[in-house]
Each structure stands twice: as structure tokens, then as C-alpha cells.
């Protein structure tokens, strides 16, 4: 196997007296879907926030694409190609699909010899349409505020945004939460599609079937520590639950 795209080494994050992430190491290879499993408060979210530039870790290092990185902000991480989709999606519900996909990186047209710059909404809408098409997601209209869209569709907009901006690593935080069953399937399908394109995904979830359905490998966390790492094909829900609740612990063994 070639060198991993992301390599986390002995990462530790402390809040006050609480060790939220305790000496965690793991790799993510290109085109791999890695599940990050754990109960509430297990440290999953803190761990990915360290990777995506929200938190600075106290100790340990992150190697991305062969280079040691230290992101000062989420924007830094995004510029490097790490896109994180949080549960709240970070979309502006009063704007349309195109405006959301291009938010903060709007395409402009120069007018009057560069004196004025106007938004090129037509171009942005067209590009959005193409990206959504490539993910086989169809919306009746792209010109309405996204507040009229369903939860799954908004998730799709967030994913399309990451895809359009050439995400090299996608981190998804509980993406199937609060979705209807058909939409959950659609999201998992998009994850498979990303994998097919060689974009690795870190999937944070506490939903066992989701993790088993799309991941190649599963990392289980408990109270800030990585307690196990399993090849998905060689594990089962029962075993994973035991790790999640702390009944089993490979690191202690």
C-alpha cells in the first residue's frame, strides 16, 4: 500500500483538566472510507476538529499528503483539501444552492474594464448543476433559497460544495442524522461515489449499520482513547458495541 494520505500520530487534546483526545494515532489511505465510532463524549468530534483546524492539539502531529501540517484555522485546512461537513452543515438557508456552494469563494465578472466586479450567478449556478449531476443528485430548482429543501438535499448541497472545491479528504460528522430512510441511503451512496473517485472519507457516526455498510475500516473511541481498529469485513455489530461501551479494549490488552 502506498503512503497514507492522512496520518495522525499520538494526538492529544486537553480542555482544562479533561483529556478529550488521548494519544490517538490512525491513518487514512487514498480512496478509503474510515469509520470513527464511539458513544457521545468519546472524543470523535474533538479529534476531527483537531484535524480540520478548529482546535490546536496539545501534543502529537498530523501528516497530510506526506507533509507535517498545523492548521491555524478551518480555512487553512480547507485550502489544503480537507473538507469537513458538520451536522449543522454550515449553509446559509436564505441563499440558493449556487450561492451556498460558492459562499466565500464567489465567481465574479469584471465590468467597465475591471472598475466594477459583479457576481456571475449564471456561471455559479451552471457549475453547481454539473457538480450535483455528477453526484446523481437532482433538484427541481436551483434558484430558490435552500430553506425550502429537505434535510437530505441540504446535506447534498454541503457535499456538492466540498466536491466542487476538490476535497482531497472528506470528513463527515453524523451525516445521516435527522434524515428519512431514503435520504440516509442516498447519503451513503454518495460516500461510496466519493470513494470510487479516490476521495477518502472519515465517517463519524454512532449508527452501527451505517458504519458497517460503507466503511473499509472502523476506529472505535471510548473516553478519548482509541480502543480498537477493525477491518469492517472482519467485524460485526456485537463486537463493535462492546468496544463502544468500554467492555473491550485492545489498547489495554
Amino acid at each position, binding site marked *: 500500500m502506498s503512503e497514507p494520505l492522512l496520518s495522525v500520530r499520538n494526538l492529544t487534546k486537553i480542555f482544562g483538566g479533561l483529556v478529550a483526545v488521548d494519544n490517538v494515532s490512525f491513518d487514512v489511505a487514498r480512496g478509503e472510507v474510515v469509520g470513527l465510532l464511539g458513544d457521545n463524549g468519546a472524543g470523535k468530534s474533538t479529534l476531527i476538529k483537531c484535524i480540520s483546524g478548529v482546535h490546536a492539539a496539545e501534543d502529537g502531529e498530523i501528516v497530510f499528503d506526506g507533509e507535517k501540517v498545523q492548521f491555524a484555522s*478551518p*480555512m487553512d485546512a*480547507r485550502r489544503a483539501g480537507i473538507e469537513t461537513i458538520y451536522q*449543522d*452543515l*454550515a*449553509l*446559509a*438557508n*436564505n*441563499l440558493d444552492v449556487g*450561492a*451556498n456552494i460558492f*459562499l*466565500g*469563494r*464567489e465567481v*465574479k465578472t469584471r465590468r467597465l474594464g475591471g472598475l*466594477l*466586479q*459583479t*457576481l456571475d450567478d449564471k456561471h455559479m449556478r451552471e457549475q453547481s448543476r454539473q457538480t450535483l449531476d455528477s453526484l*446523481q*443528485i*437532482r*433538484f*427541481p430548482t436551483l434558484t*430558490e433559497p435552500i*430553506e*425550502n*429543501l*429537505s434535510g*437530505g*438535499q441540504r446535506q*447534498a448541497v454541503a457535499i456538492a460544495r466540498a466536491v466542487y472545491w476538490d476535497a482531497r479528504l472528506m470528513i463527515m460528522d453524523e451525516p445521516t442524522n435527522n434524515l*428519512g430512510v*431514503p*435520504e440516509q*441511503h*442516498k447519503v451513503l*451512496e454518495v460516500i461510496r461515489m466519493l470513494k470510487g473517485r479516490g476521495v477518502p472519507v472519515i465517517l463519524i457516526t454512532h449508527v452501527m449499520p451505517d458504519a458497517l455498510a460503507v466503511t473499509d475500516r472502523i476506529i472505535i473511541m471510548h473516553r478519548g482513547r482509541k480502543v480498537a481498529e477493525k477491518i469492517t469485513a472482519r467485524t460485526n455489530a456485537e463486537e463493535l458495541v462492546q468496544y463502544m461501551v468500554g467492555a473491550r479494549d485492545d489498547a489495554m490488552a
Partner: protein
Amino acid sequence: MTERASRIALAHASTVSSGARTRVQRLILFLSSIWAWLFLALLVLFFVVAVPLTTGGAVNFLTVRNSQNILVAIIPVLLLGLGQTFVIIAAGIDLSVGWVMSLASVLSALALRSAFDGGVPLFPSVLIGLIAAVVGAAVVGLVNGVIIAKLKVPAFIVTLGTSFIVRGIAYLMSENTTVIGLPSGIRAYGNDALLYYISGPGSGLYFFERPEAKGELLRRMDAVLPYPVVVTAFVVAWAIFLLHRTQFGRHVYAIGGSMDAAVRSGVPVDRRVIAIYILSAATSGVAGFLSTLRFTAGSAVIGDPLLLSSIAAVIIGGVSLFGGAGTVIGTVIGALIIAVLTTGLVMLNVEAFWQFIVVGTVVIVAVLIDQSRDLITGHVRAGAAQ
């Protein structure tokens, strides 16, 4: 599940929100989206019929002269409202605009007077007055913006505070509220019009120059597009461009729609917020400058009563106080509704105080209509959920 089936399911889920509305609901949605225009049209229609009726045909509402009076009357409210439109769409509030306008009026009068007294010709002196008004106002906007964006103090508190500070400064600088002794020539800048039209015998059109008309001829002379109206129209056009066509405008909506999304999408939120408050102060500065030209005097009390009217115009025009929604044209309509109401009621000989009661009612009705929209669309506003 197959890919095709899930795609159908996704498409189906999407149609629930828009497709399930009844015809009545859609009609209500449509009417509520254009109600301000409708209301303005009905209001004008009402006064067109009612004013001649109550005056026995002696007075008409929709004359050239009266329409120009209405346009002149909306200028300060509209200019204050334009900046406020950006601020409120970005989910902020600027309570300092009234006193900023006053300060700008005083500053422009002082600068203009000292320039002219120092031997600078009239027109450059007027420009110096304009620069003093806008720059002085912008400094207040900068202070507002920096404290709000960087120190995270709520806009309501910051702008309330600066409005008191600016009030004090305006009084101090004007040395007893009014700056007089301005060159009389500026009267023309503040009151003359682009076009004059004399009807009847001796009729004629005059561009850029007020004809020498006396007595009977003067009564038949109409001034069309007074200069302050032209200046305001340019500011409106610029505001429309800025809000609806540029990246800055898009960011204003994004900040008001979801501050969190804006920050995490890399929108330079702090810089934008600072610019929004500078802009709000600057349009108030232009209002102060125009009032100085109009009255040939700087006044430290001119802007204070206009704050609430300007916010009323913005709200009537459909800008959401929760942020994220609204248009520049809406605010123009809102300002027009207030001016038409005020002028019309005066012409109907209704006691002037009634205008406040009517405007207040319209503001509340405007918000109720907006909320009825939300009931139908199922849209929960960020602030309303608490």
C-alpha cells in the same frame, strides 16, 4: 435500495415542501410578496380620489408639484433607511444614524463655511462640505463596526452608545445647535431642480437653470427632479448594485442568514460587518449634507426624529429584523408609503398627529404579513425559535 429508487425518493421528498400548498396558500404567498407595492398603489389611488373630494376639487394629489414634494420629503428617511437596510439584512441594527446625520450636517456646514470664507469658490466649497459630512460620518461607522465586529458587543448597545456620544459632539461643534452664516449660493444646490416647466401662456422647458419667473408665471412653474432627489437616486442605484450584484452584497445576506455558515465558509465577516456600519453611517452623512444645503444651515437636531421613521421604512419594505432577507427597492417603497401617507393626510386636513398612528399601524401590519408567509412556508426564523 437501487440508485434509481433512491433518486426518485429524494426527488419526491423535495416536492413536499412546495407542492403541497393549496391554491389559497399560494395566492396568499404571492400577495404577501407584493403587498407593499399594492398598498402604495392603493394609497395613491385613495388620495387621488379623496383629496379633490374633500377640497371641492380645489386641490389634486397627483400633481407634478406634489409628487416632487413627496420625493423631496422622503430623502432623509430613505438615505438613513438605505444604510439601515444593509445593517438589518446582516442581522444588525444601527441606532446612531439619526445623530450621525446631525453631526454630518454640522460638520459639512462648518467645513463649507470655513472653506468659502477662506476664499475657496462656491462649488469646491460644497464638495468640501460633502467630504466632511461623509468622512465624519464614516468615522463613527468605523467605530461602531470595529466595536461590534472585533469586541463582539451587541450592535444595539454599541450604536445606542455612539448615538449619545455623537449627539454631544454635534451640539458642541455647532455651538448651540445651528451653524449659520453659510454662503447663500448653496441654496440653489439644495433646492433647485434639474428641469423647470412652465405651463400655459409663456410656457417653456428649462434645464439646469431656474428661470426668472414671478407672480402668475411662478405659480404655473413646476420644478422637476430637484438636485437632492437626483443625488439620492444615484445613491439608491448604487445601493441596489452593491446589495444585489456584488460579492459584498451576497456576504451581507449570508451574514444575516447564518453568521456561523458565513464564518466557516471563509467570508471575511469582521471586515464585512465593519464595512456595513461604515456604509450605514455614510448614507446618513449624505443625508446630513443634503439637509445643510436645503436649509442653508447646519443643524444638530435635524436627524434625531428620523431614526425611527427610517427603521419603519425598512420594516415596511420587507426587510426582516432577524436578518437575511430584504431588498433596496423594498426600502424605497417603504419610505414612499410613509411620505405618501403623511402628505396625503395633511392634504385631507387630517390633524398631523394621525400620521404617527397610521404609520405605526402599517409597521405592525407589515410584520404580521411577513409572519403569515412564514406560517405557510414553514420557515422558522433564527430569532423566532427562542
